[in-house]
């Protein structure tokens, strides 16, 4: 159980900067998820925290102690690897015991901890098997068990579910969340899957190209993304982005002209002037389709029973409809969006916050 602080942490491989000054605070007992596209540096950041990768500059503190120069073994962390990294020549029991043997834990203590972890993870029957004799889900649980018996300060997970099939992934997700509640441990979890991030995290850290784009609870990221990247990354299907031009901007409302679609009213934003080029973001589930009218044409309809996705032109817009729909490809429709569910981004992709203007 511990907290973790990163201060201006940077990483450079020769001339390639992979982490550009990350500041982060993880509180005791928090479940933090690093999420981002592949190559964003999230795994590197995790490996820097656990000490497998050296830090070029900046400070890493665990429980107030600077650990930059401590080797991985002495930081008191445990990691679950993407490939599980179970020792293939050892049984499940030996796999779990290895770390404890290395620090000279007494035999009966090792047995007690393994017994407890095995019960918790339903591995009792498998202790004498070798990793090759286990299914993917079982291996996953052994890898977690190996971390648990160490009683680490912080659990680190490096894309642990990416090798499992979809069904198993859902159940392991629930199991991990449950485990977090039961152990009340600090956990840092790396994934490229925003669904995993949304469902498990207390706090999500969105990374792109070695920079933190936004940190916050899942719904905060969903409801008020700080920029276009976070808005596009969080939520599935992803947010629609439409080029827009400011027609008039007043105290009460912003009137926008959407390219190829038509006018739309958005809440007021500060500092807008007539003629400004913006991007309007609207989530598929917030887009209302009205049959008839003008503005968009149905390209394709995906009926999933409980909900339907409608693909529209122009701009390859996706709308999500609750229930089923009678819309068919070729239908002309008009689009409606509730003004307070609209996100606006400036030319750099930074979100224009509504609240600021109201305060002003």
């Amino acid at each position, binding site marked *: 159980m511990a907290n973790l602080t990163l201060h201006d942490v940077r990483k450079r491989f020769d001339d390639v900067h992979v982490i550009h000054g990350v500041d982060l605070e993880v509180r005791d007992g928090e479940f933090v998820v690093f999420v981002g596209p592949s190559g964003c540096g999230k795994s590197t950041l995790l490996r820097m925290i*656990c000490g497998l990768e050296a830090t070029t500059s900046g400070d890493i503190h665990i429980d107030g102690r600077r650990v930059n120069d401590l080797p991985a073994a002495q930081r008191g962390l445990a*990691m679950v690897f*993407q490939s599980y*990294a179970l*020792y293939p020549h050892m049984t499940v029991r030996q796999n779990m015991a*290895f*770390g404890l043997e*290395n620090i000279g834990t007494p035999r009966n203590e090792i047995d007690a901890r393994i017994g407890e972890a095995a019960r918790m993870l339903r591995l009792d029957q498998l202790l004498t098997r070798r990793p090759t004799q286990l299914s993917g889900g079982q291996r996953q649980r052994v890898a977690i068990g*190996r971390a648990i018996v160490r009683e680490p300060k912080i659990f680190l997970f490096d894309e642990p579910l990416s090798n499992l099939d979809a069904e198993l992934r859902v159940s392991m997700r629930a199991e991990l969340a449950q485990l977090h509640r039961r152990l009340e441990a600090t956990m840092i979890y790396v994934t490229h899957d925003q669904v995993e991030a949304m469902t498990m995290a207390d706090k999500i850290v969105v990374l792109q190209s070695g920079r933190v784009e936004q940190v916050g609870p899942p719904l905060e990221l969903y409801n008020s993304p700080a920029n276009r990247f976070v808005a596009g990354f969080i939520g599935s299907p992803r947010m629609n982005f439409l080029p827009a031009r400011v027609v008039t901007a007043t105290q009460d409302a912003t009137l926008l002209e959407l390219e190829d679609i038509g006018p739309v009213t958005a809440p007021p934003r500060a500092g807008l002037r007539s003629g400004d080029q913006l991007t309007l973001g609207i989530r598929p589930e917030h887009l209302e389709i009205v049959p008839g009218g003008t503005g968009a044409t149905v390209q394709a309809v995906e009926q999933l029973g409980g909900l339907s996705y409608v693909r529209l032109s122009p701009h390859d817009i996706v709308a999500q409809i609750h229930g089923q729909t009678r819309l068919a490809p070729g239908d002309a429709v008009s689009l409606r969006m509730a003004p307070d569910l609209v996100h606006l981004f400036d030319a750099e992709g930074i979100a224009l916050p509504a609240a600021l203007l109201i305060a002003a």
Partner: protein
Amino acid sequence: MADATEASAVPARGMSRAAIFVAATRGRHGADWTDWASYVYLVFGTLLMFVPVAWLALSSLKTQAGLDQMPPTVLPYEPARAALPGRPGEFPLFRVTKGDHAGQELAEVRRIGLQAQMVDPAAPAAVIRVPVSDREPVMRLHAAWDNYSAVVSRFDFLLYFWNSLFITVVATVITLLFNAMAAFALSKYNFRGRGTVFALILATLMVPPTIILVPNYLIASQLGLVNSLWGVIWPGVATPTGVFLLRQYMLTIPDELLDAARMDNASEWRLFWRIMLPLSAPALAVLAIFSVMWRWNEFLWPLVVLSRSENFTLQLALNSFQGELTTSWNLLLAMTVLTLLPITLIFLVLQRHITQGIASAGVK
């Protein structure tokens, strides 16, 4: 051999897999000419390999007289002898070729000049005179196992065997350990000059051992290793082949395993001992086999380093047998067979690993 892999499916339910493998042909209907060619080639190769060994094994069972015989025989024969009632000892048997007794087998009791006094074992009372030129010796099959007992009892065979065994086992263990350590460093650590070091190690493969024989000897003598079994062992423990073979294998062991072990508080040595070595077992087995073969058959270096006969290995002892004025070929051959046996046994037991190893390492 290639035919087997390209073999058309032989419709033979119930036939064992080995039989299907052997009977596989390239031609769909009957044998293609390539089948004939490969069979001829394979049979030729088999004969080329096995005839000398079989010849050696058979000859090692011949007496010195049997070896000297012209024309040579395939199977070990010796002159037949018979006991005669009323006379002590055994007497050589001859078949008479001419005269009254032609076709009979008689025992020679005495020879005077060109006349032999012979006796029919069935009627031992009557002495028959036969000219020496009118008879030929009767040969019978006889395995001279006493060649082997003579080798073991008359020479220090057990001492030479022990020397060879000691060098082979100890050198193999040290070779495995040192080569695995070098391979571990070269495959799993990033350090400046790693590529250069590896290239240099491989480059030593291109230097023929005879070229560095003299410098090696000078170093060994400076270190006081001459005339000691350790003098044979130490200079050869670092083998470029072994380092290469193990490194290539260790590259396939995922780094995440090492990271996991590091997170598990394992020291670098423990990482090597508990994770790397067990996981490299297949490659280590191959290298062990190679090392045993190299060390057991090694000749030139021990010949240079070991000059006192109590330190001789089997190979040196064999060589010294031949150097004497009279070569006891029957004993030499028996000892050669004894020398071949251990390596043959190893081959039999580890055959699968050897072929696998040769295939995977791409070395001789």
